[in-house]
């Protein structure tokens, strides 16, 4: 039995359905990231777990206990809010201790807990300050301190890093990861940043329009997206999704990609998914991540199915660690990720290696993966 279980959760505001039947579970000590574009219902889902929003249907269990109708304070959870939500009239110490004060913990014990948390988060020197006297990163730490001090069963984070600048965000991301590793707490984390999702999570739920599109480990989500939305949303730069057709014959299928003013490329598929034969001579979406489309020298050596084809390079973007090359296939701009020192010139035709073992195929009508 999982530590956090969500069964058939529905949430309606009047006639509008915000959450359309969510099923998720998370093991103890896991890190679940809810990710999706704005308005997908991820924050609402987090609020229903916290008890700040009521649910219309379904069940939420933590450690085997149903918490559907419990008051937020009775659920044994702690929450870090997007805006930090520090009480402006109290000192940092007062903020951290407020929850304990409400539960009637004696002052001496409160002080001990404050000191312990302050040490973990290195905010000891800030304890007597008011929130208005803190920087963004310090406020973030205090907000986490307020959650940590409760030692709850479940931590909830609502886009905690979205108000920080880029560098601080990376630092705090590492800090949260370290905190999770050292304390072993169970965390549910909401973000719209897919990099945060990939780096932090043990499980990711990709959401859209109140539905979970895919639920799995970061590697599963990244390598085996179940539909076009997940494939497009996760990964930066995004996966190349190229309109193509299936050619060849029964045993040896191939992907046919249109090129501008030249004959199409035909890439032979060694072990095509079985469902693909039904799409013979029909349009599909061919998905290949930038790192699976590279210069022949930089291609993965032990990949079993690599096809090389000449492509007309339109733009070259040297990014320091890598060089990105943009070509045009099937009428779309396609990004290839090359070694930093790859010798490539815009306006020329260069052979690119397609790692077809990493390629995925989608049905353009249903947008689902062809397996």
């Amino acid at each position, binding site marked *: 039995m999982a530590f956090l279980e969500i069964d058939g959760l529905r949430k309606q505001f009047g006639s509008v359905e915000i959450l359309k039947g969510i099923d998720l579970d998370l093991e103890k000590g896991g890190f679940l990231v809810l990710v999706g574009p704005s308005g997908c219902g991820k924050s609402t889902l987090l609020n229903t777990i*916290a*008890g*700040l929003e009521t649910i219309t249907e379904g069940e939420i269990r933590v450690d085997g206990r149903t918490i559907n109708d419990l*008051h*937020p*304070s009775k659920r044994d*959870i*702690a*929450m870090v*809010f*997007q*805006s*930090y*939500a*520090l*009480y*402006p*009239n109290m000192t940092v110490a007062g903020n951290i201790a*407020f*929850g304990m004060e*409400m*539960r009637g913990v004696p002052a001496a014990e409160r002080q001990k807990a404050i000191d312990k948390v302050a040490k973990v988060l290195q905010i000891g020197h800030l304890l007597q300050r*008011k*929130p*208005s*006297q*803190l920087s*963004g990163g310090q*406020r973030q730490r205090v907000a986490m301190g*307020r959650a940590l001090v409760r030692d709850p069963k479940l931590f909830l984070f609502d886009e905690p890093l979205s*108000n920080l600048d880029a560098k601080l965000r990376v630092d705090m991301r590492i800090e949260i990861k370290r905190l999770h590793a050292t304390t072993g707490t169970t965390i549910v984390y909401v973000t719209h940043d897919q990099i945060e999702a990939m780096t932090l999570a043990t499980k990711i739920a990709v959401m859209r329009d109140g539905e979970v599109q895919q639920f799995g480990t970061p590697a599963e989500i990244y390598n085996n997206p179940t539909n076009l939305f997940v494939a497009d949303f996760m990964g930066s730069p995004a996966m190349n999704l190229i309109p193509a057709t299936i050619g060849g014959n029964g045993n040896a299928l191939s992907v046919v990609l249109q090129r501008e003013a030249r004959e199409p490329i035909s890439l032979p598929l060694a072990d095509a998914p079985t469902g693909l034969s039904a799409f013979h001579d029909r349009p599909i979406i061919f998905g290949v991540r930038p790192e699976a489309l590279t210069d022949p020298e930089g291609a993965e050596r032990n990949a079993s199915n690599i096809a090389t084809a000449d492509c007309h390079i339109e733009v070259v973007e040297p990014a320091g660690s890598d060089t990105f090359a943009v070509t045009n296939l099937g009428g779309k701009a396609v990004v290839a990720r090359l070694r930093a020192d790859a010798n490539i010139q815009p306006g020329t035709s260069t052979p690119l290696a397609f790692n077809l073992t990493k390629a995925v195929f989608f049905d353009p009508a249903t947008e689902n993966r062809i397996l």
Partner: protein
Amino acid sequence: MSVIATPARQSTGGISARTVNRIVIYSLLALFALFYLMPLFVMLVTSFKTMDEIQNGNMLALPRAPTFEPWLKAWGETCVGLTCAGIKGYFWNSIKMVVPAVLISTLLGALNGYVLTKWRFRGHTLVFGLMLFACFIPFQSVLLPMATILGSLGRFGVTLRNATGFSFGLGNPTVNLVFVHVVYGLGFTTLFFRNYYEAFPTELVRAAQVDGASFFQIFRRIMLPNSMPIFVVTVIYQFTNIWNDFLFASAYAGTGDAMPMTVALNNVVNTSTGVVEYNVNMAAAMIAALPTLLVYVVAGRYFVRGLMAGAVKG
């Protein structure tokens, strides 16, 4: 002559058009200030003069021998109707009526604002609309219905006293006035606090809920301490209105020992016996106006912005 004056011409010409404009504007402003300050000045100088000096001298002249006698007389000896014990008793009557009325109406307004923004229920806009409507009711139109209600409350007080030996203040004119002012102040105080709390970060309330604070604990520990600016605005508004009210005061406590300051002042000035003591009247009027001035001076200092800084992302 050129229409557009060059800068060189302006500086050599002595007085530029800009300077002339300034002089005209400031003269006008000074004139208006003088116009509005004149009555206050007359009141102030008259209150420090003897009756002889008032009758024989110029109204605008400074007192030749300033005396506190009229102030002391107004405070402790002057006749209000038939009793001649000064206005001090009525001053305290007003304080006893104003302080609870202001505090209760402000706190209830804060509570209403808190509920109407952070604990919304079905139909909350209708309730708020009706409360807003209360701001536009002309007080004259409620004099009689309110008198009926106060009469009923008074009779209920008598019943209570017969039953329990204690009337719980029902029927007491001061309590009646507090009740009336709380009821009719509620519309404004609710409006003030609702609009303030509308912009108050809801995440703070949610964080406090997760921390286990109850409805009233959130109100007392989170909402109220962060409401200083609007609290001060409301207190100033309510204090000024209730202290200066004459209509309700004369209608529901116009005679007897509970008479508030405004009614007493009217009775001092409207006395029909003996010489009209202008100096005493002026001193009494000044005393009646002092508390509102004091509230502005004291509370205005706390009228600071930016108390919410640091609550949310900065």
